[in-house]
């Protein structure tokens, strides 16, 4: 079972990640399912200027590893890669990459979906949304609190 996680400001190559996954799994891998999240340019009808992601390291990376191993075990996955980007990201920028290798398409799809849901809730990664109508901390799956302390200039 191959697991690789990374929290980084860099933008990775999906081709290289896919090759890495294939190289590190055995010859019975028939399916790779991938999810990529992108910064949306509009949320709740408001223009989004950028997102700022921050992570509580090293525990955020450890949480991603835990999710990857547990889901791989549960669904018989052959390989899992999770890359989460942090820092300033702009509309159209990719935020997260989840790649899952499995013998069949069913395992791969189930694996990638479950991993994404768990990353959203268990990852110690946090999002600030900078929009035309203010700055919002995003808590959990959609709750927003307006930022009440201006960042020092």
């Amino acid at each position, binding site marked *: 079972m191959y697991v690789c996680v990374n929290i980084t400001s860099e933008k990775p190559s999906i081709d290289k990640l896919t090759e890495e996954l294939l190289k590190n799994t055995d010859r019975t891998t028939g399916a790779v399912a991938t999810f990529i999240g992108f910064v949306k340019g509009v949320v709740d009808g408001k223009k989004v200027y950028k997102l700022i992601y921050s992570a509580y390291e090293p525990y955020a990376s450890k949480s991603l590893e835990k999710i990857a191993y547990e889901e791989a075990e549960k669904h018989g996955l052959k390989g899992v890669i999770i890359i989460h980007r942090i820092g300033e990201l702009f509309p159209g920028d990719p935020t*997260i990459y989840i790649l899952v290798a499995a013998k069949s398409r069913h395992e791969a799809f189930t694996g990638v979906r479950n991993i994404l849901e768990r990353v959203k809730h268990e990852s110690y990664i946090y999002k600030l949304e900078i929009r035309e109508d203010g700055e919002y901390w*995003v*808590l959990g799956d959609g709750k927003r609190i307006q930022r*009440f*302390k201006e960042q020092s200039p």
Partner: protein
Amino acid sequence: MIIKVKAFSVFTDILGKELVLEISDRENISLSEFIDLLAKKYSGLSKLLETIEYVILVNGERVEEEHLLRDGDEVAILPPASGGL
């Protein structure tokens, strides 16, 4: 005794990203006593802790409220995660 506090997301509005507290007037302090002390020092923290769900970790682990902090411990105050997309 030195305790480092790390705040994330909405908690940084009150605490900043990181602060270091020196507890000199007592031998030991439990996690809940420490959070009470923080709440006295930083107005708005109590209200926020009542308003939203949160997790407090000590050195990356979930611990009981009565857990006694030790010199050099890192206490993190975290709202619900919003990674992914």
